[in-house]
């Protein structure tokens, strides 16, 4: 109890900026709740989704965040390969980020449901889960398993640290190792969710899952680079520049692969010119005069390309100004590409050839902002707790 209060005090104390930040997040969350109540009352009709485009902004955000969660942990791999010291930070902060991102993912699925009160029907045993046939059932298991693993690792490590005890590597190491393929799997299963639908040619391409992973490996680490710099500034945790630059180098490779896969897809569609070209055309050039996503997609492409060049060049990737710029570009680029740029063309043109121009309604934007704010709040609080534990400023007293 005393320990809990100590932790609470730690989390609630901060300087003016900290309070302003919390206040802002709380206000945005309130906005999200208001928007969501409105949606509960009236139904999903307050969104811009309709029968031809039956998934929209919520599922787009979900898809992007699965990538962030996966990549945050995948950073463990290069950390092992290059064997650099700051691995502990990477694992811990990556895992906490994964926790926050997973919570957001689940919320995005929940707000997209027509009947939240029937959520239990989805669960194994209590409901009637359509396992193994439905990929959505797989996704639920994969995502919740991933959340549990990350919660366990990070809290176990923090608990031990807070009691000034060493955590036993024999417990945590297998879990960390397990979390790596699991991270790959959550993103792959999410890709398969789309990939398995033969009725949607844009998604039904074998290149989808690899492209998912490649782009996740760009955006997730970019988020981490920015977070590490903030952590470094507000706490006494010292993160080596070399670590950041190494991650930046990795992003360069991942982005290279991502761009290559993109080119492969582009070639296949446009050179063969079959009817399956339509969604791609809709995205990049407009179809029958409908072109709401065209400027977005070219922006994403340019951002990704610029970021790639910045990350590739050692001089620009080791300069914090250009490095941070590139991180922001990558995050935006992938957010567009793996969000709306992935979900919408699956539906446009629809299976009966209809073209419905979707763009999210105010309610959808409000709910989305609310969920992002909640995710940011969770991560902020987790960090606020984890950082002093990590540096040794916060210690619990064992009961005995």
């Amino acid at each position, binding site marked *: 109890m005393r320990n809990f209060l100590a932790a609470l005090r730690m989390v609630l104390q901060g300087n003016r900026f900290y309070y302003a930040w919390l206040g802002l997040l709380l206000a945005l969350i309130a906005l999200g709740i208001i928007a969501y109540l409105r949606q509960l009352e009236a139904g999903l009709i307050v969104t811009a989704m309709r029968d031809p485009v039956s998934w929209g902004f919520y599922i787009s955000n979900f898809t992007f965040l699965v990538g962030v969660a996966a990549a945050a942990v995948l950073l463990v791999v290069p950390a092992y390969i290059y064997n650099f010291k700051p691995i502990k930070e990477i694992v811990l902060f990556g895992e906490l980020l994964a926790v926050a991102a997973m919570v957001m993912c689940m919320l995005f699925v929940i707000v997209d449901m027509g009947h939240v009160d029937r959520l239990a029907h989805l669960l194994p045993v209590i409901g009637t889960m*359509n396992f193994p046939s439905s990929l959505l059932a797989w996704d639920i298991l994969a995502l919740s398993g991933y959340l549990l693993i990350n919660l366990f690792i990070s809290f176990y490590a923090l608990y031990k640290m807070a009691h000034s005890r060493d955590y036993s590597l024999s417990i945590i190491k297998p879990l960390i190792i397990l979390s790596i393929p699991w991270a790959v799997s959550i993103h792959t299963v999410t890709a398969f969710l789309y990939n398995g639908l033969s009725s949607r040619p844009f998604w039904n391409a074998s290149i989808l899952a690899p492209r998912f992973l490649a782009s996740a490996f760009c955006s997730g680490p970019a988020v981490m680079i920015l977070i590490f710099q903030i952590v470094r500034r507000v706490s006494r945790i010292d993160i080596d520049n070399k670590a950041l630059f190494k991650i930046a180098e990795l992003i360069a490779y991942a982005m290279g692969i991502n761009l290559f896969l993109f080119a492969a897809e582009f070639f296949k569609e446009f050179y063969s010119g079959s009817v399956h070209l339509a969604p791609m055309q809709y995205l990049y050039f407009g179809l029958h005069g409908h072109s709401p996503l065209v400027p977005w997609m070219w922006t994403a492409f340019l951002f990704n390309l610029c970021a790639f060049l910045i990350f590739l060049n050692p001089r620009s990737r080791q300069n914090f100004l250009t490095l941070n710029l590139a991180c922001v570009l990558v995050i935006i680029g992938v957010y567009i590409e793996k969000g709306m740029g992935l979900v919408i063309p699956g539906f446009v043109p629809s*299976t009966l050839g209809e073209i419905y121009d979707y763009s999210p309604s105010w309610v959808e934007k409000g709910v989305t902002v609310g969920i992002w704010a909640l995710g940011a709040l969770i991560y902020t609080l987790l960090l606020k707790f984890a950082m002093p534990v990590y540096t040794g400023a916060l210690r619990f007293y064992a009961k005995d």
Partner: protein
Amino acid sequence: MSTTRDPHDTISRRSFLKLAGLGSLAIPAGSADASIWEAFFRKSFREMNRDEVGAMLERLERRYAEEHGYQLAVKVTGPLPGVKYGYGLDLSRCVGCRRCVYGCVQENNQSRDPQLHWITVLRFAKGEKWVNDLERADAYYHAEAVPEDGYFYMPVQCQHCEDSPCEKACPTKATWREPDGIVVIDYDWCIGCRFCMAACPYGARRFNWGEPGLPAAELNPDTHYLGNRPRPKGVVEKCSFCIQRVRENPGRYPACVEICPVGARKFGNLLDPASEIRYCIDNKRVFRLKEDLNTNPKFFYFFAT
């Protein structure tokens, strides 16, 4: 909507319940009794025994009466033995009048406002390549009179696929194929995730984005649990081959077959060699939509002339 209660009462009550953490449980005012909890903790339709089904139907009918003022009977007629339904559509006869669309709306208690249709009638320009390139079809033509010169029409509805992508996709088994080949949805089990809509290659599934507007005066009171009973908002629905009609003994035609003024629509038992549908399959050149997807529809198109 002709409800007897003051709508404001419902709204505030509902908002209150929501804030109390109950989510969007559509709890009708004035009946917040044990039956709601029974409904909440019920099993899925296919796992219920006869008593449980009976209790559920009674609950359902009472709720319809209280909440909407609908006096209706909900039945659960099971599949007839030795029957597998098949549907035929003669493209050379269809004139694009869409009587079937509105006949279906009436028979199956579809929402009038917002409008919701289970049948889409596509219009193609003659001589265009088609079938694979549905993009060139028009689902919203505004003709003064049909048929129009230079066009032909193709109605599309649920094809009752034997290997149905929708059934495979549904995470809760809220949709499945019955022994007589009808693909059904349990509207009280569907969570509204719309994965089935992404999976269906025929755009057959429709979602209740808002509260369905179905005036009690326009209700068809003869309903089936898996078919035309009024649906709540937030669930997916679609054509059930008029399960409430075809499973009668002797069976009746689906409403769209009955209403089609040019007789373009055929229906029957695929297992009966003397049936109309078998005659079409044996004597006409039939084809099915999107054969390459291996969904194996029970819906056959043909040109009779």
